[in-house]
């Protein structure tokens, strides 16, 4: 067997073998590895390449080494799932860097991390003032994560004491002019509904690049032809406006009428609508 042919064969086999093995090894982000995992992946890569170009002359020796590194790593992953102690031993534990705004110099020293490096990592997280930090921790992957002091964290609707409507994830129902049937069914619609909506918007399917349905069943369309201005339907705002107007009108009927019984009806129903509007507001206006 000529050498070039052998290399061709080995490379071909290893290419697909490694592809399969890496799929088995999982979805871990290669930039978020613990140092040991990084070394492990590197060793796998090096063994593979040495075997492929015939530097490890016996193909099966190469495969054996490859197998050991992959199987042991899978075994350790499995054991780490089972036992916290093994997990900490293999993956390492996180180290606290800042507590209640105070830097833990001892821990920094253990990690051989200088103050400058700490500040650099904080800036990466868009924290420029050490004084804004309540708590910071270095994960076993070497990433630093920061919890800001409560007055420096972004506002949420909870902080404002405002109720907002819960929402479900949007479903992408059109991509590149093709209807995606599974997400459409997930959103609770069928192609008839979609065709109706497209007709209402006055566009053809093949002019739609992306179409998404949000949790309340509203369809958003992005067209290939950007010169077409799609009307933005304000159905929810109009609905709220309708209720608001009806409510105001009933209040004025209440003022105008002399009939005691009628007064009561108007008053009750105006109050009912008012309550209804308060309940609907988070769903319609936000």
């Amino acid at each position, binding site marked *: 067997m000529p050498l070039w042919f052998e290399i061709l064969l080995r490379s071909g086999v290893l290419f697909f073998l490694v592809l399969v093995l890496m799929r088995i090894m999982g979805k871990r982000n290669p930039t978020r590895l613990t140092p040991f995992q990084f070394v492990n992946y590197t060793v796998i890569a090096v063994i593979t390449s040495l075997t492929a170009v015939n530097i490890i002359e016996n193909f099966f020796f190469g495969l054996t080494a490859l197998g050991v590194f992959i199987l042991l790593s899978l075994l350790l992953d499995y054991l780490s799932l089972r036992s916290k102690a093994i997990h900490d031993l293999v993956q390492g534990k996180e180290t606290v860097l800042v507590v209640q705004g105070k830097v833990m110099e001892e821990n920094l020293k253990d990690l051989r991390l200088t103050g400058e490096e700490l500040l650099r990592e904080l800036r990466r997280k868009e924290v420029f003032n050490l004084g804004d930090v309540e708590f910071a921790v270095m994960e076993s992957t070497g990433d630093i994560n920061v919890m800001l002091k409560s007055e420096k964290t972004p506002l949420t609707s909870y902080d404002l004491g405002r109720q907002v409507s819960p929402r*479900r994830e949007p479903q992408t129902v059109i991509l590149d002019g093709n209807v995606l049937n599974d997400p459409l069914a997930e959103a609770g619609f069928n192609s008839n509904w979609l065709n109706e909506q497209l007709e209402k918007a006055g566009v053809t399917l093949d002019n739609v690049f992306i179409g998404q349905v949000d*949790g309340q*069943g509203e369809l958003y369309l992005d067209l290939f032809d950007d010169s077409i201005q799609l009307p933005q339907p304000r159905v*929810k705002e109009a*609905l709220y406006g309708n209720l608001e107007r*009806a409510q105001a009108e009933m209040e004025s*009927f209440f003022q105008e009428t002399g009939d005691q019984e*009628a007064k009561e009806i*108007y008053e009750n129903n105006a109050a*009912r609508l008012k309550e209804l509007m308060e309940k609907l507001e988070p769903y319609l206006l936000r």
Partner: protein
Amino acid sequence: MTTASKLKQTLSSLKNARGTLRIYSTQTREEEGQKVFQEALETTGQVIDDLEKRLKEMELQEPQYEGN
């Protein structure tokens, strides 16, 4: 404009709102939202019933309002 015809207008905008609420109560996927819209649908329906009853009374009492 007479009170009866004003009331008719209010009724029609409420019915309009009820239709839209019905659409949202069926097409909202999120459960809590579905419930809120369904309750809203019911309440609106009750308000409409009340007002329609009132409208009928008015038309009985003063027949000249009819058709305005």
